[in-house]
């Protein structure tokens, strides 16, 4: 299996008006294999959106890359020139953005906006060919009457239909890596089921990265999981490893605090406190203040990365059975 994208100890942060850099992502490492889907989960402010924007090289101006590599098919995305990056972005790597209401241009037709993505990467394409491909891709994402709908404007589409348009725009160039940032957050559950159904059909050709706060979505479409907390990848591994045997206290707490269709009517498990902001990050474990099993050591040093079993990595001081320290 070929590796499509690999993060190697990637760190980034934000600089404030005085030029002081606050670290957000701290030595994040993971990889996406061909034909597999990776879920990046975490709460708001944990850096999951910054991780996906880093792959697209679309970080806001105040962001600073502090180190590490993002290898896309062996090439370091961080060292590419802007011209090279423009060839990759939207062609080999493309992204489905969070809010279809704001991501679409209200004064241009759907057909134009989807066709534009094609035209930029294939300038010699004829008008007829372009139209044909747009109709094909709209049909692929489940929009009925694509020939008439392509002359309509975004306001004529419902939320679920707009999200389909976003997906169509992202997949028209058959990307090798598709990133979906909270693809269904603004949608109703019944529409969410429709969209996830489409994404499952599209998956399998290349790599898929799904960024979400919803563990249910990850369980539904992903094979690998990275759990992020306050800019660190605290736990990663296969879906089965993480969901059936969560090791990190944060992952365990998160799983236990979700009401399911079978939960009893007793108080839910809670993680005390709230997620720290980028200005409050400390040297030691960033979860220490909210952790039930926190020790002196946790507050002083960053926790080591440990390998537990074949496909399961965790960043924690707690002892685990059969652990192997990968790096301090």
């Amino acid at each position: 299996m070929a590796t499509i994208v690999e993060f190697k100890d990637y760190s980034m942060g934000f600089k404030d008006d005085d030029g002081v850099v606050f670290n957000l992502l701290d030595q994040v490492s993971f990889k996406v294999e061909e034909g597999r889907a990776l879920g990046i989960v975490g709460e708001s402010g944990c850096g999951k959106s910054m991780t996906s924007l880093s792959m697209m090289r679309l970080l806001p101006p105040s962001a600073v890359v502090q180190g590490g590599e993002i290898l896309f098919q062996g090439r370091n995305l961080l060292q590419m020139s802007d011209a090279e990056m423009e060839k990759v972005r939207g062609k080999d790597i493309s992204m489905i953005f969070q809010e279809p209401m704001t991501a679409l241009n209200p004064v241009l037709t759907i057909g134009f906006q989807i066709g534009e993505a094609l035209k930029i990467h294939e300038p010699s394409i004829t008008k007829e060919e372009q139209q044909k491909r747009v109709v094909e891709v709209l049909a692929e994402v489940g929009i009925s009457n694509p020939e008439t709908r392509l002359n309509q404007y975004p306001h004529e589409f419902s939320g679920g239909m707009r999200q389909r348009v976003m997906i169509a725009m992202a997949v028209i160039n058959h990307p090798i890596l598709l990133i979906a940032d909270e693809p269904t957050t603004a949608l109703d559950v019944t529409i969410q089921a429709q969209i996830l159904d489409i994404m499952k059909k599209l998956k399998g050709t290349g790599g898929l990265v799904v960024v979400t706060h919803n563990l249910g979505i990850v369980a539904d479409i992903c094979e690998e999981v990275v759990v992020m907390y306050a800019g660190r990848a605290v736990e990663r591994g296969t879906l089965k490893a993480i969901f059936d045997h969560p090791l990190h206290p944060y992952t365990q707490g998160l799983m236990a605090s979700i009401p399911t269709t079978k939960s009893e009517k007793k108080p839910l498990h809670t993680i005390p406190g709230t997620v720290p902001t980028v200005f409050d990050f400390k040297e030691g474990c960033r979860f220490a203040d909210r952790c039930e099993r926190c020790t002196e050591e946790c507050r002083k040093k960053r926790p080591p990365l440990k390998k537990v079993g074949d496909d399961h990595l965790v960043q924690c001081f707690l002892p685990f059975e059969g652990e192997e320290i990968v790096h301090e």
Partner: protein
Amino acid sequence: MSKEPILKVSHLNKFFKVKKRKLIEEKKYVHAVEDVSFELYEGETLGIVGESGSGKSTLARTILGLIPSSGGTVEYKGQNITDFKVSNSKMLRSELQMIFQDPYASLNPKMKVGSAIAEPMLINGQAKNKEEARQKVKELLQMIGLQPEVYDRYPHEFSGGQRQRIGIARALAVNPKILFCDESVSALDVSVQAQILNLFNDLKEKLHLTYVFIGHDLAVIRYISDRIMVMYLGKVMEIAPYDEIFDENTHPYTQSLISAILEPTTEPNAERIILEGDIPSPVNPPKGCRFCQRCFKAQPKCFEEEPELIPVSADHQIRCHFAKVGENK
């Protein structure tokens, strides 16, 4: 649970006029809430679920008189309070309170949170002067899990979960009996959502509250509610006790909502029912059953004739031609 309902809603309607575009045009209405009847008993939590556009929030707003109703009645403790056109409306309003969805938008950014909570107390006479109000607000802040020292801070200094706690404190400031929670945990992170859900349950016990809990996440609604009301296009499709909603004998719409729940487990999911299309326009609702166009069980009869709410057991009603009467436990 007492037998006398604390709140009784009968045949409540809310239509919004659609603006005419031509001189000669038939008057059109958005059927936001149509013929909704239910009873709420003291000490229970009634969950309301449905997709966006099903009229959940409009129903709550119409009951509370925030928007005028177009027909039907609302009775609170036996008194007709429809649209709050009654002499003791001020007292009644304080007994029925609402917690809004967006804690960011529902707090005045220029007002200290303490003053925001104290204001309704002073207006409604729960506190006689500012000193007393200050004291009461501090007690309230402690009860909902915040430090009393936050009295003098502004909303932007709080996180989402803390702001939602402040929203709850403000609703509790006037000693309400019934709380309407409109998507009160939807905007929160998972770990914070659990904290707030636990807080709702604690407060219910401590203050003997009755809740109407509106949401779209059926797993959350099932957890918090005693009974669940499912709405679709302004109509009640089903009312059932929380432990019967996952049974076989439920409305097809409820079944599809349940099948759309994504559980965070690695167990294989049951075959998912994927509904076609979107919720239709409430301006011209379908002629027969409201759900007929998207229903996977639809028969020709469903397109012609609208089903009634059929009682299938003591507190379980289903609006479907194919509901089986008397088969529930």
